[in-house]
């Protein structure tokens, strides 16, 4: 069933949003941004022509909301696929050990681990910005200076939100917006009101605050796993070095193994295998945790 032609830019954008319903929220955000850029440029290029008339003409040149929605859903997918180098097809090994070890050939496992370690720094930064921005905006709200502070703070929060999305897409492959949230139209007051009414403003704040405890947990798990794994993996080297008296720690004296059988070749191998299992499990955990994190981030930053 054909819908009536949109009479204004806002009508068009609402129709485009409706036509894209059910698509990836990040894709919807990008499509709305692009459409608004084009429509406003076209209206500005036709001064004196009523907006409704320009929009009617645009339905044949730019495309109807349904056609544009189809282009974003299909074309983007096909062109992106055509531009990507063909992925090597590796059949999943039926062997559970090989499946467990296959994590080493997945670049996303390493990037996820890196994200977990980095999240201590980003989490602290986001938390500080969110708390400082919110308290400054609130305390200065009674003065005229509170307004630019609040607008600047929301701008920074949106830039962080976009940057975090790009980082998470690079790390996990989860589609995130490539355009910021459109600043919208209307007077300054209308835009500020829209910002306050937009649920995403507040969910973005929640994400920024939440990143501190999450960052502490993520980086603790990642660094603990890494140090335990590497330490156990190096046990055979330390054992051999001590046994042949090449090396004895000058600070702590010889390393004492307990129970005693750990200080035997079999014990060293046992420790090395344990270290390898810890490291491999850590990569699996990193991949799962960051994938889940990306989904939560998408709900809070995009939807």
């Amino acid at each position: 069933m054909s819908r009536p032609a949109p009479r204004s830019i806002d009508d068009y954008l609402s129709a485009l949003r409706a036509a894209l319903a059910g698509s990836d929220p990040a894709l919807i955000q990008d499509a709305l941004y692009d459409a608004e850029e084009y429509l406003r440029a076209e209206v500005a290029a036709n001064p004196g022509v009523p907006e409704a008339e320009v929009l009617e003409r645009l339905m044949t040149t730019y495309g109807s909301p349904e056609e544009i929605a189809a282009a974003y859903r299909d074309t983007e997918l096909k062109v992106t696929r055509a531009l990507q180098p063909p992925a090597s097809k590796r059949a999943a090994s039926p062997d559970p050990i090989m499946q467990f070890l296959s994590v080493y050939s997945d670049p996303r496992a390493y990037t996820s681990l890196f994200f977990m370690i980095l999240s201590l720094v980003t989490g602290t930064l986001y938390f500080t910005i969110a708390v400082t921005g919110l308290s400054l905006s609130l305390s200065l709200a009674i003065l005229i200076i509170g307004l630019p502070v609040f607008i600047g703070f929301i701008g920074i929060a949106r830039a962080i939100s976009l940057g975090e999305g790009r980082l998470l897409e690079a790390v996990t492959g989860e589609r995130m917006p490539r355009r910021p949230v459109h600043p919208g139209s209307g007077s300054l007051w209308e835009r500020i009101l829209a910002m306050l009414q937009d649920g995403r403003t507040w969910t973005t704040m929640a994400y920024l605050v939440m990143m501190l405890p999450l960052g502490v947990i993520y980086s603790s798990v990642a660094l603990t796993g890494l140090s335990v794994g590497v330490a156990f993996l190096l046990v055979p080297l330390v054992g051999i070095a001590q046994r042949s008296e090449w090396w004895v720690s000058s600070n702590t004296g010889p390393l004492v193994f307990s129970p005693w059988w750990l200080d035997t070749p079999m014990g060293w191998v046992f420790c090395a295998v344990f270290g390898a299992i810890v490291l491999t499990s850590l990569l699996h955990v990193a991949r799962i945790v960051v994938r889940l994190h990306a989904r939560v981030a998408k709900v809070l930053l995009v939807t």
Partner: protein
Amino acid sequence: MDDGHAKKFQKELNVGIVALVLLAVLDRSSQDLYGYEIAKRLHRANDGDGLFKEGTVYPVLRSLCEGGFLKSRVEPSSAGPPRRYYRITREGRALLVQWNGIWIQTRDFVDRVLRGDES
């Protein structure tokens, strides 16, 4: 003949062609161009009779940018929202040369078959 078939055929053809002509337009341009400007140039190049909807240019521009074949920067505009200007990269030029070769080969092949001198 059913118009729907023609539209569907055109749509299928456009998927790769839009990316190819976008790269070509940006390669020829001495300055960076924004989405609206590129769409209008393509519209004019086809004597105002669009083979594809101008709105379909944007998702392709984004995909090319994601692949590193285009670079973009945002500049404020007095007409509305900030504009995203695109420029072709070295990888984009190499891709254009490669795709241009494939296009010429495909076009010649299709022409030969349609003319009936394939043997």
